[in-house]
């Protein structure tokens, strides 16, 4: 990621798109009292005074510098203790908590004006929420946005990891609704914090044991619990099992952020991430019966969608990659890298066959 420039915009700067204060200091121009001074006799007058000022009055990247600094510190701590949930002072955002406020705060704290941002919501760049978050970043942080995974510096995502391999320069920010995997087995966060402190994860194992008792195999649809760096049990957010192996020994940094729960955690590059499983009941990714009905792919995570005509189609969930594949059916997931054979979960060359059930049609595996 490119270095983040900090900047402060005040009412004296009329246009969000132009200059940024570049003194590198934090939040001075808004004064000790914070907020935006508006000269007016009454509320209507105040609103009238703001009218036409656009985003003038907002700091660069929406958040004030103290907030961003605090988020960055939490991120650094999270990287230092992989898988450990680090508290941060989550701020109110202009959308409801639970809609990605943690992700937005993290993304906005990382972005600099030279960065390119991609936002995906369950694999799609086009959902209203993804579009809104993208627009907020465009307006306040002056960044370029893209739908191309390979072109993005920062990708904020909800419930998916892209199919195209992420590289060492990229950061994936995952939105997290529930931070603690142990909450499935005990609602007490205090008790769970003690369990994390002592790596006491017996209860989670019982949960998996009972899962196998019930289904004959581990049937955890999403939020599959993983062990990070051999130490902390981590909730990888509601990504499908398909995406879980991508966390292991990746080149990129994964950040997980929960606005409602005010927690940030991380999987740094090249960290061991191991899904919990039994020796005789291995972790398995989702199985698909048919190739993508749009691009023909057999090595991607697919979901059913309904077309405007009311037809039900099973297609790639990662829409931007699916579009590329429609142009070039043989496009590898690491096509953009200067090396190939990169392990990026199911359907990639070095994916560990013993742990994963391949897609039924085998994909483009060799």
């Amino acid at each position, binding site marked *: 990621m490119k270095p983040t420039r900090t900047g402060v915009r005040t009412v004296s700067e009329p246009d969000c798109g132009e200059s940024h204060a570049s003194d590198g200091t934090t939040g001075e121009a808004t004064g000790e009292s914070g907020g935006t001074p508006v000269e007016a006799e009454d509320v209507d007058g105040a609103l009238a005074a703001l009218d036409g000022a656009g985003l003038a009055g907002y700091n660069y990247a929406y958040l004030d510098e103290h907030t961003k600094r605090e988020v960055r510190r939490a991120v650094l701590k999270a990287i230092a203790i992989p898988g450990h949930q680090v508290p941060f002072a989550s701020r109110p955002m202009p959308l409801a908590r639970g809609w990605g406020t943690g992700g937005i705060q993290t993304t906005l704290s990382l972005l600099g004006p030279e960065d390119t941002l991609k936002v995906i919501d369950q694999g799609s760049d086009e959902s209203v929420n993804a579009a809104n978050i993208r627009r907020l970043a465009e307006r306040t942080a002056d960044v370029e946005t893209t739908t191309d995974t390979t072109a993005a510096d920062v990708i904020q995502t909800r419930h998916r990891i892209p199919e195209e391999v992420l590289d060492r320069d990229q950061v994936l920010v995952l939105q997290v609704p529930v931070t603690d995997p142990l909450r499935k087995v005990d609602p007490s966060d205090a008790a769970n914090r003690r369990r994390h402190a*002592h790596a*006491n994860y017996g209860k989670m*194992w*019982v949960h998996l*044991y*009972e899962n196998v*008792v019930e289904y004959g195999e581990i049937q955890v649809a999403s939020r599959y619990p993983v062990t990070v760096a051999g130490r902390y049990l981590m909730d990888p957010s509601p990504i499908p099992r398909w995406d879980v192996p991508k966390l292991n020994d990746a080149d990129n940094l994964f950040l997980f952020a929960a606005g409602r729960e005010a927690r940030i955690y991380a999987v740094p590059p090249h960290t061991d991430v191991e899904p919990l499983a039994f*020796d005789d009941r291995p972790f398995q990714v989702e199985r698909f019966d048919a190739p993508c009905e749009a691009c023909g792919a057999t090595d991607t995570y697919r979901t059913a969608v309904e077309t405007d005509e009311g037809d039900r189609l099973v297609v790639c969930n990662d829409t931007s990659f699916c579009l590329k594949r429609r142009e070039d059916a043989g496009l590898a997931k690491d096509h953009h890298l200067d090396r190939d054979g990169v392990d990026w979960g199911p359907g990639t060359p070095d994916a560990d066959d013993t742990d994963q059930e391949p897609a039924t049609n085998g994909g483009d595996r060799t």
Partner: protein
Amino acid sequence: MTVLSGTGLTRLYGDPCGDCESLTGDDAGRNRCPACGTIVACADVSLDIERGEVLGVVGESGSGKSSLAELLALERGEGHSRGSVRFDGYEGNLLESDYDTRTRLRNDDLALVHQHIRDGLTLSFSGGGNVAEKPLAAGERSFEAVRERVRSLFEQLEVPVDRMDDPAETYSGGMQRRVQLARALVTDPAVVVLDEPTTGLDVSVQARVLDTFRRVQRERGVAAVVVSHDLGVVRLLADRTLVMRHGRVVERGLTDRILEDPHHAYTQQLINSTL
């Protein structure tokens, strides 16, 4: 061979004045220090348990038997604790050991069966899951192996195997107690501490549960400390028995000797009032 021993075990609740122990006890007839109000829950209790042996601890409420059980089971209680607990295969005084040592000991070699079932079981889990938790926590990663251990313990402790996957909250009190015992025994500990094992059980169920425990205890050669206010419990289970009053051991010996030839006035009174 001695597997567990305690020396000078003492636990005080309050702000001790220094004379608490001399001002309390059996002779003084109280366990509350008249000078400073400190409660002397138990004082200067020493005992040792050999492999496969069952030691009973009897006394009425407030006699200090539960504090003694907590000390032996390395439960972190409130109050000031003194004395030493040693366990075969572990170095030093375990009352001063770190969390990891205690956790390892309590997961592998020493199990406490809580008086209250809710403290010992996760009732929303299946009965089998409760038993599976300990080998899973200890790193067992074969599902079939865990399942087989649970099944065989259910059989040994006479819990219907076809109920092992039902939530423990749907079990009867007797079944829950058996599951608790199964959970205690699943890692093949050298010592099990049972705190009032008949609490909450119907009289008709009590004897059966205790008898099952006794059988399994003998088969596996596990030693046990059984704490109870009920002489019938120690009669059925214990080889040797300590009688406690006001935080002190007032009499000890072979269980049948304690019951049929009690020496101490308090023991005689205890037996006369219950048998």
